[in-house]
């Protein structure tokens, strides 16, 4: 199949996905508005529509979960049903707040990540969430005979660390992206060669995007590389894009400025798989994945009490897979949105590029805001001291 048309199909699928999620978000939003003012007439402040449906499904799956764990004590075949229900429960459960959807999406947008990395990040953090839950219940409840309160306190400490890490992650992004923004801004303000260089780079970008089949998604201009002082690396490695970097050198030297964003081309396939590539996402995975889902902890403790801890462990991992699918879907949308903005920016040099930098800075600020809100929300309200 023609790579371009294949790309078009993928993009159409993405569009359909985006529309579906928009519909869900809309209905959730509408019911949320009803939710905020429960005292209007006799109206029920109840989530209805799709949110209500998700809620109803969750209730059903939750009840099925406990029923199946009971059944598995005597009937081994119930384990298969348990895995199936765990998987679906994970998908529905992650549709609610939390599970790092917002943080991962913002991180991906700010850090110009590819959708492939977005999916990997989503799965890695979901699996880490499952592992944390298993370790907590395995050590605290199974080995030490700890109470729910002790487990709750443990989760609370982990949450604080996790939220603080999210703030740090955001601050680092903000630092890197803020500088990128200022660089682009200076580039626009300073007339002449630098501007041409910018335009040239943008042309280069277009060229790259449309001639290297299937490379679209990787064609990002990783500022993170700059942050790590990887300029030399970016130039020396020889990207094999069939494009000379000499002009860039020329203009940049003439400019005397720090290299703008066009130079490092983001992760190459080998870099993506290499230790350096994964290392970049590692901090995001830990920040998001450290915090276990309390739902998983409840299921694990229940399975443990029924003498079926291993079934609980398997169920937790399968639930994590379901969670990852939901998170990955939303992360993919975020990446697609950014790619779309990039395409637009590529056609209009100058302020559009600046706006794109601005979006990145904004996403970095969002990550910080999420982290602070989580920390503050945590400080303000501990859920009955249960978790």
């Amino acid at each position: 199949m023609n790579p371009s048309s294949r790309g078009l199909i993928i993009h159409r699928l993405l569009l359909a996905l985006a529309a579906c999620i928009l519909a869900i978000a809309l209905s959730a939003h509408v019911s949320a508005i009803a939710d905020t003012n429960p005292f209007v007439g006799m109206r029920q402040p109840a989530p209805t529509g799709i949110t209500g449906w998700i809620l109803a499904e969750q209730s059903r799956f939750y009840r099925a979960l406990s029923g199946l764990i009971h059944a598995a004590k005597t009937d081994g075949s119930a384990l298969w049903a348990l895995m199936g229900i765990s998987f679906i429960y994970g998908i529905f459960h992650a549709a609610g707040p939390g599970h790092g959807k917002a943080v991962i999406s913002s991180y991906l947008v700010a850090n110009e990540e590819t959708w492939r990395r977005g999916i990997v990040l989503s799965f890695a953090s979901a699996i880490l969430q499952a592992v944390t839950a298993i370790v907590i219940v395995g050590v605290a409840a199974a080995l030490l005979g700890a109470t729910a309160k002790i487990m709750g306190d443990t989760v609370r400490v982990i949450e604080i660390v996790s939220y603080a890490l999210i703030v740090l992650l955001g601050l680092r992004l903000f630092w890197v992206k803020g500088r990128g923004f200022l660089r682009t801004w200076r580039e626009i303000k300073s007339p002449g060669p630098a501007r041409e260089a910018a335009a040239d780079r943008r042309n280069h970008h277009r060229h790259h995007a449309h001639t290297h089949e299937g490379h679209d998604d990787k064609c990002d201009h990783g500022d993170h590389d700059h942050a790590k002082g990887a300029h030399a690396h970016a130039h020396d490695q020889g990207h094999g894009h069939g494009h000379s970097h000499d002009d860039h050198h020329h203009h940049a030297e003439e400019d005397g400025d720090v290299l703008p964003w066009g130079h490092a081309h983001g992760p190459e396939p080998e870099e993506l798989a290499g230790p350096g590539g994964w290392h970049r996402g590692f901090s995001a995975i830990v920040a998001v994945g450290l915090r276990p889902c309390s739902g998983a902890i409840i299921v694990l403790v229940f399975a443990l009490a029924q003498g079926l801890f291993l079934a609980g462990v398997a169920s937790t991992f399968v639930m994590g897979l379901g969670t990852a699918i939901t998170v990955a879907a939303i992360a993919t949308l975020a990446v697609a949105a950014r790619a779309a903005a990039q395409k637009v920016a590529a056609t209009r040099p100058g302020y559009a590029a600046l706006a794109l930098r601005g979006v990145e800075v904004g996403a970095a600020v969002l990550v910080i805001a999420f982290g602070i809100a989580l920390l503050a929300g945590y400080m303000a309200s501990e859920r009955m001291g249960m978790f």
Partner: protein
Amino acid sequence: MLVTPRARLQWRERLVHVAIGVTALAAGALMAPGRVAAHPHVWISVVAELLYNPEGSITGVRQVWTFDEMFSTFATRGIEQKTQGTFSREELGPLTQTYMDGLRDFGYFTFVRLDGERQNEVFAGPADYFSDYDPKRGAITLNFMLPLKSPAPAKSLEVLIYDPQLYFYLSFARFDPVHLIGAPAQCRPLVKTSADDAAPAPGSIAGMVTTSTSTIWVKCS
């Protein structure tokens, strides 16, 4: 310049990109509040009593919350028990205290409206609270009473029991969930029960709609 098929494809591609972007951004913006979607972790079945004084005013709300089996198992984990398989009221005492302390910050998820006006700080803190364990259901029942600071005329009183953030899924018990204690004979409670507790018409949209809100009001004929 000739418009090549390839160029046209690129143009279309860009248009699709923009469409994806706009849709995704809209979805993202709407999802941002984060708390709008359902995300319960604990399911609670509620039985409530409205307490009347001899003058016919309501003096308080008494509630019995039955936690779901999985959460109850989690909550009682590690608590010492004299008799295997059950927990005494005393053994659950510290747990009950933790819950009542925690619930204070959330107004006990119990909200009151009088004469069409939402009331704040109407309850004088919980009284008579304790927890029991139901070995048959494997469930904890939390009992507590919320006295009103001043007795309220029952005529236009509404009590709503729900967690706005849906962390707790509070719904009325299936049978006979609300009682009036010491009420005038002509008064009876009206309630809205969750749709998933009622029998939904097969295939109907209404069957999919549910609520975690329990609303009580009193009608006197």
